[in-house]
């Protein structure tokens, strides 16, 4: 007796690469607001992402204020590859592959520090913080004259800086950082060029069994979830109840980058008053006008950066806090979150402390807003792993706001929608993502 099978689970791992790409094109339909669930955890999709996005895009690795002095360095990761970001003896910033050119040992296992040279723990090759190989134990004895040290320096990774944010790319053919960022720079200025900003300490890191994409998706377009996911905060009276998170704009600036701008701020100016002149000097007057009214700003720089300016009342004072994080993929269904806190360098010490405390209380690993998000990321990702989702081609609905038209009269660049409850930015993000991973 034979049974007839009406449905089959598409076997993505048995498909050729072009079949897989075709399958993605057939099933992911951003413009229709249809995003299939398998993309949130399938290892084959992850492989494409690593190759086509994380080995190619410009990725954030450090803020300049983390390495202010000659010799300062931080170690970071880039497309699964460890790198050392150094402030060289010559004053130059470099991004060096953290791989010894002799036999591949990780040269440095510290998070940060100040060093002129790095000595390899395996055989002791010694490199300057400019990447140059300067010492080999027993060189004369073991190599005679055959070793040319000048060809054995640490590999330097292409990097560039905008608004003190150091980006690097593993793709030498990538477009310039300037072109990659495009119009999102106008909004990055509000976060990082409004005043001289500095990172507080080092980024904290924690690990979530959820895909990095849900972090970016949530960042770029989801103000809607705050009503329920962060409903406890409204119940405590920390934010107004109801539709507070709706007011403002949702803006898409291209290349997968976009933001949600919450304004006006019913509670008044949330930035240090003593810096108003600095803000006015550094920002265009339209930008300053936005800063003046800003309640919050949540920016996604594709693929995996979230920048947040938020404000709240703490200890009787209206205070804003600024942070940057990356949703770093660590597998098809997991990520490590790294979160940096930044403050205005010339803000009063008291204000800085309050701003840091507000950030710790609300965002970061213990943040009372943030905590709830990781439940969503985890459960959506884990659900999507069931083969049933592939068999049924379960798709999620991203159609919110499709009936709306962008507004024309906004002062900043981008495609701008009035109010933040919209999924236009997610549709654009996933279109960009799909184009990237299906590119030949």
């Amino acid at each position, binding site marked *: 007796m034979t049974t007839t099978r009406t449905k089959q689970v598409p076997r993505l791992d048995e498909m050729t690469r072009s079949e897989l790409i075709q399958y993605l094109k057939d099933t992911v339909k951003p413009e229709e607001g249809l995003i299939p669930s398998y993309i949130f955890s399938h290892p084959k999709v992850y492989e494409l992402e690593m190759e086509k996005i994380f080995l190619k895009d410009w990725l954030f690795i450090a803020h300049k204020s983390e390495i202010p002095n000659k010799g300062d360095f931080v170690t970071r990761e880039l497309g699964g590859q460890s790198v050392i970001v150094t402030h060289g003896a010559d004053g130059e910033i470099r991004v060096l592959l953290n791989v010894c050119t002799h036999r591949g040992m990780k040269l440095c296992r510290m998070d940060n520090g100040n060093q002129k040279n790095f000595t390899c723990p395996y055989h002791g090759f010694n490199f300057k913080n400019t990447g140059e190989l300067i010492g080999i134990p027993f060189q004369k004895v073991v190599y005679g004259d055959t070793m040319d040290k000048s060809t054995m320096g640490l590999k330097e990774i292409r990097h560039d800086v905008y608004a003190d944010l150091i980006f690097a790319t593993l793709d030498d053919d990538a477009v310039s950082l300037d072109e990659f960022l495009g119009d999102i720079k106008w909004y990055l200025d509000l976060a990082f060029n409004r005043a001289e900003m500095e990172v507080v300490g080092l980024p904290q890191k*924690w690990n979530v069994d959820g895909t990095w994409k849900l972090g970016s998706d949530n960042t770029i377009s989801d103000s809607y979830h705050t009503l329920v996911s962060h409903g406890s905060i409204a119940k405590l009276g920390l934010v107004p109840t109801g539709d507070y998170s709706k007011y403002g704009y949702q803006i898409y600036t291209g290349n997968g980058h976009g933001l949600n701008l919450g304004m006006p701020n019913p509670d008044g100016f949330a930035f240090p008053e003593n810096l108003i002149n600095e803000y006015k000097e550094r920002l265009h007057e339209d930008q300053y006008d936005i800063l003046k009214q800003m309640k919050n700003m949540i920016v996604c720089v594709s693929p995996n950066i979230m920048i947040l300016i938020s404000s709240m009342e703490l200890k009787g004072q209206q205070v804003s806090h600024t942070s940057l994080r990356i949703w770093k993929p660590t597998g098809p269904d997991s990520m490590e979150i790294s979160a940096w*806190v930044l403050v205005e360098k010339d803000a009063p010490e008291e204000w800085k402390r309050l701003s840091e405390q507000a950030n710790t209380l609300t965002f970061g690993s*213990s943040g009372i807003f943030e905590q709830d998000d990781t439940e969503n990321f985890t459960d959506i990702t884990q659900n999507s792993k069931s083969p049933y989702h592939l068999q049924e081609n379960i798709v999620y609905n991203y159609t919110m706001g499709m009936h709306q038209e962008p507004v024309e009269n906004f002062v900043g660049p981008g495609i701008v929608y009035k109010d933040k409850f919209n999924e236009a930015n997610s549709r654009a993000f996933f279109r960009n993502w799909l184009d990237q991973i299906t590119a030949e």
Partner: protein
Amino acid sequence: MQEKIILQYEIEQWLYKEAELLDELNFDAWYELLDEEIKYIMPLRINQMEESKPDYSEATLLFDDDSTTLRLRIDRLKTDMAWAELPPSRTRRNVSNVKIKEVSGNEVTVRSNLLLYRSRSTDTTADLISGEREDVLRNENGKWKLVSRWFLADQTSLATRNLAIFV
């Protein structure tokens, strides 16, 4: 000597009781153990070169709380929308190596180890948060109250989805 033994016993019992209250989600009773002026701090553990340097950063704090913000965290957990702890994590706090470092007036400084086991929902893998505490306890009218807690985790990148729990 006998006084020392009694003090050691009292402090140990206090820490065990505290752990029990937290494991039983009895946050209000736990809050009663805290002094009004409490400082509740968790610095960031980092990988550092020199052994002489402390391998943590107090510039980056994972908890930076006082009695007002701790109250807020507890009140939040009581709302029916504190999703991060719905259902609540099953936790088991193992407190050990309790060493009284200093006694001054009615205050003691005590170091201890904490191994916190955390199980979420249907997860079959558990989160482990291990670290060291330095607490200051003050005796007021025969009752010990926590004046400050400093907790340093052993991981530089925490293997838990959030810190919706107390340490």
